[in-house]
């Protein structure tokens, strides 16, 4: 058996989104770099404020998740933050987040890194932690303030945002986690060396050998082992580095637009890296009904894919209104030009 299923059933007790308020249109980035104005990968992307980073954004998403979970933060036994943009190279994001949300000191706190699937990696670890009985509740966050080199193709999409989930016993869940699966290989598609500000990408590896190969392998295995297919799910969310890849992938497996459009946020906010799949899941949970099945497939460069199936419970109706919806954050929008964006992203050298 290749599936990851804990001994004790687990689920999502609470979830919370966060997206910063600033947006830069792809056309504005193209204006500066004289890019091709046709065929933009997305419409616009989210940009963090001057006082925001992965820690502050994780704190807000975590507070939203706790409000929906209706638990005392002292009941958390682990606080894990998945990101490729932790503010410190050495010093955990998890301890600051834990302190700010009022978690106890008797917890495990750690930072996860696996490019864009660091957040779902923390979810899988949380399933094991809760499923083995080591603790009742785990906070897992996927959050990023991604950067692309000025003028690089990634600059059009590298965005900021993410979501937090609290994993706990299935009996108290708003969505039960039916099963998960993880597939990885050593693939040099995208990386950033220590102390480097911007990532590098191996052009030949980015599409087929990385994103599509890993997601296809992981989804095929997950469907075979669970005996399910696209038609068994009401909603699906895939990693979304742009608008095109996830739609192509979804169609390959027979998913329809009705199934994947709710979780497809990249056209409006860009690629939120570790945040992308959990944020899409948050948008789905905002409208899902009890009994709905949700399929989620994350991708992280380097490379690997995590797949999940969820079943929504009647708890969703009571809890989703206890924090701002994902759409409320998308609607909170202030457009900025390239000069302001360059200041927000530290692209001016001051000393």
């Amino acid at each position, binding site marked *: 058996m290749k599936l990851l299923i804990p001994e004790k059933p687990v689920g999502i007790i609470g979830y919370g989104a966060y997206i*910063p*308020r*600033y947006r830069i249109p792809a056309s504005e980035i193209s204006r500066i770099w004289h890019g091709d104005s046709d065929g933009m990968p997305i419409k616009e992307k989210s940009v963090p*404020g*001057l*006082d*925001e*980073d992965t*820690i*502050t954004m994780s*704190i*807000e998403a975590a507070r939203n998740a706790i409000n929906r979970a209706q638990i005392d933060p002292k009941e958390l036994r682990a606080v894990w933050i998945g990101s490729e943009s932790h*503010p*410190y190279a050495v010093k955990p994001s998890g301890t*600051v987040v834990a*302190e*700010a*949300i*009022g978690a106890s000191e008797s917890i495990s706190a750690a930072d996860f890194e696996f490019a864009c699937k660091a957040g779902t990696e923390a979810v899988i670890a949380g399933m094991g932690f809760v499923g083995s009985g080591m603790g009742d509740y785990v906070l897992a966050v996927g959050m990023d303030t991604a950067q692309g080199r000025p003028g690089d193709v990634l600059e059009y999409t590298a965005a900021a945002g993410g979501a937090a989930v609290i994993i706990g016993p299935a009996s108290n869940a708003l969505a039960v986690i039916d099963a998960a699966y993880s597939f990885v290989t050593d693939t040099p598609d995208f990386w950033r060396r220590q102390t480097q500000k911007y990532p590098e990408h191996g052009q030949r590896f980015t599409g087929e050998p990385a994103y599509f190969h890993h997601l296809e392998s992981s989804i095929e295995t997950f469907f075979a082992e669970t005996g399910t297919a696209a038609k068994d799910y009401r909603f699906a969310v895939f990693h979304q580095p742009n608008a095109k890849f996830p739609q192509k992938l979804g169609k390959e497996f027979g998913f329809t637009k009705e199934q994947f459009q709710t979780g497809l946020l990249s056209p409006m906010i860009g690629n939120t890296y570790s945040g992308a799949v959990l944020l899409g899941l948050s948008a789905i949970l905002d409208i899902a009904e009890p009994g709905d099945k949700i399929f989620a497939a994350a991708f992280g460069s380097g490379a690997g894919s995590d797949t999940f199936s969820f079943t929504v419970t009647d708890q969703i109706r009571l809890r989703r*209104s*206890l*924090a*701002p*919806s994902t*759409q*409320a*954050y998308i*609607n*909170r929008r*202030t457009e900025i030009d390239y000069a302001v964006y360059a200041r927000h992203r530290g692209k001016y050298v*001051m*000393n």
Partner: protein
Amino acid sequence: MEAPRHWRLKKQRYSLTGEVCPHCSAKIFPPRDVCPECGQEAKTAFQFSGKGEVFSYTTINDAPSGYQEQAPYAVALVKLNEGPIVTAQLTDLGAEPVRIGMPVEMVTRRIKDDGNERGVILYGYKFRPVIAGPR
């Protein structure tokens, strides 16, 4: 604000944790262990909701050392729903003008960075316009 002093005060700075008076129920921020209303001892921790409104404000253009990166920014006296008035930066205003009585909510943000990207980053509370839309 030096790092050691900030570290001692981080509970109140990260999450607006104050005190409640066991004698007269007054909510106290910042925590000072003595009730400003009735003068008796008050050491019970109290988590503020973070909701309040702008009581007064000013815009800082010439920011002190360590804060220049975020200038210009607004500093407000925020009257918390529970009673106390706190001084804090406003953030995420976008194009919205600040006004007296504007409903705001607490967020935890970067307060100060040493600017050379080597030092410790200080986090603390600020206030922003309440997020509109469905809850």
